């Protein structure tokens, strides 16, 4: 049996070009996260690698680490700032990494959205939690330091 399909007329090129491209941002979110990954990566190179080496390598390693250790360390605003920046950058960097991985492996749009959102929520919660602790931590509440 014969069916007839009618050809679609060619859209005028100009209209098509306008529909594509124009109005969208150049760069945009993807560019900025890309740049952020690199800049935060460079900062983390100091912050995170420094942190892990300081914490794990000197004699005693993590054996040294207990409440007192933290209490002494966080008396210095320098280390508080260090740890807080590490916390924020690592979370932002890591969560964005997980977002990319989700884009790569989760194709159904609904799932994509849900999983990405879950990561954002976890990240946000941990950022708040960490910030509250770093800012409000006051060891003297549990007695004198040392």
């Amino acid at each position, binding site marked *: *049996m*014969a069916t*007839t399909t009618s*050809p679609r007329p*060619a859209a005028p090129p100009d209209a*098509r070009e306008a529909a594509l491209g124009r109005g969208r941002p150049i760069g945009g979110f993807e560019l900025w996260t890309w740049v952020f990954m690199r800049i935060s990566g460079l900062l983390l190179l100091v912050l995170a690698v420094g942190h892990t080496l300081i914490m794990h390598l000197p004699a005693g390693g993590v054996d040294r680490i207990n409440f007192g250790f933290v209490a002494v360390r966080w008396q210095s605003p320098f280390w508080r700032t260090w740890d807080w920046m590490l916390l924020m950058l690592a979370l932002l960097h890591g969560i964005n990494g997980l977002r990319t991985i989700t884009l790569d492996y989760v194709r159904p749009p609904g799932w994509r959205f849900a999983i990405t959102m879950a990561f954002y929520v976890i990240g946000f919660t941990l950022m708040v939690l960490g910030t509250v602790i770093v800012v409000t931590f006051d060891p003297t509440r549990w007695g004198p330091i040392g």
Partner: protein
Amino acid sequence: MTTTHTYDALVVGGGGGGLRAAIELSERCRTAVLSKLYPTRSHTGAAQGGVCAALGNVEEDSPEWHAFDTVKGGDYLVDQPAALLMTEEAVEAIYQLERWGLPFNRTPDGRIDQRRFGGHTRNHGEAPVKRACYAADRTGHMILQTLYQQCVKRDVRFFNEFYCLDLLRDDAGVTVGIIAFELATGELHVFRAKAVVFATGGYGRMFRVTSNAHALTGDGPALVWRRGIPLEDMEMFQFHPTGLARLGVLLSEAARGEGGIVLNREGERFMERYAPTIKDLAPRDMVSRAIYQEIKEGRGGGPDGDWVYLDISHLDPTVIEEKLPDITEFARIYLKVEPLEEPVPIQPTAHYAMGGIPTDTDGRVVVGADEDVVPGLYAVGECACVSVHGANRLGTNSLLDLVVFGRRAGDDAASFVHDTDLATPSEHPEQPTLELLDGILGRTTGDNAGEIREELQDNMFDLAFVVRSDESLAKMQQILMSLRERYERVAITDKGARYNTDLMETVELGYLLDCADALVAGALVRTESRGAHFREDHPLRDDANWLKHTLAYRERDGSIRIEYKPVKMGPYVPMERKY
């Protein structure tokens, strides 16, 4: 089930010729392009050397000189008005390609660069001239890509991996459409249209050694031939002297242009004996024959003594890497030969079909000596015969042919479509095609298509190649008859619908047999030597009897009838072709 589509114009073939026509058509009417390959995979992409036009960017030049070279190169079998027209329109055609984005190489002041190519001269043969516009050694690739890009821009409708299997004409002979086979599903489609442009390329695959792609099986010429349209000058098939030994992969003429030389087993630069003035830069047919002669006289190299050598090892390595990168890569990959150090084994390779579907300069298919126009039917590119290449095509003239006559055919077809009503095909137009396919699919036992193809290719290579004779051609005709008998009984293993390439290759083999039939028939009657057609029993050109085109017709009983058509002359009087 068949699906019917209706368009104003259809282009069959997505190579340079087809795409150029489609660009012209799509601006003026509803157009679709059918191609058995994705268009960018057409063999136009394999062309290396260049496309010529008398731009005069580097040296003084004129279209008229270009026309002279074309006519002389074609050994005076060229229709001179067509050649004059092509070389005149060449200039604008090249500028057009540039404006569409083709990345030509540039002169220091930013204009299109040009270089020398065999047979192109200044002032009627005085000295070589730089006329070939080029983009590294990928000119064809760039043309194909640029034309395809323009089609994407225009949103041209493509039917990729659709095989055209039949031409539909009504009782009055008016074109009403085609039948196509969708490779992905095995479905047949009826395409109705007022105009059909064939641009299906060449048919070099009938020879064992060829520079042509596997897909070049002469579908267009064969299927219109089966519908009563003659084929012109089929005996004129160009054999390029420098194909990689045994493979046929082309090493461009540019290799000799840059100073490469051809040697025999004894290391002798034998072209000095055959063409004392221009030696290795002699036209393709002469070099091919010289190589044949050397081999025949036992001075060939290789295990079978059937090849000679192209030597570029004395050239400056930087020149080679810069100007001939692809060529050296081919030698390295396929023959494991290092061209910078040793000569590369080469052999003449079946390259280009000068003959084909007869057309006028508007791409309209014309029948008979009086050139009666077939309404609504067009052909362009290698499958067509305008004839601007005569008995031997000059390098770089084919790409030019595509863009000049592609445009003209598209233009004429678009006008034709506006003044014509859509004709109606017969009741079940797909019936003959169905029978053809069912015939092949229906047999469970029979002959093997692969073997028939190999025998065809081997024998055509041995008997109808660079040098032919009454005896060899007659023998070939016998062989063709028996091959055809076996083809009628051919059976295939793939009976499926989806991507049945087994079925399509078998159909293509049928087309090859048709083209071979026509080629051999033409070669047998033409008792002279002219251009690419060399008869050792008639080694001279015979203008008194043979300054005419052959037209081969397929009769209903399967036999072939040859008619003739005069060559359209012009300002150039035939003279001996000496170099």
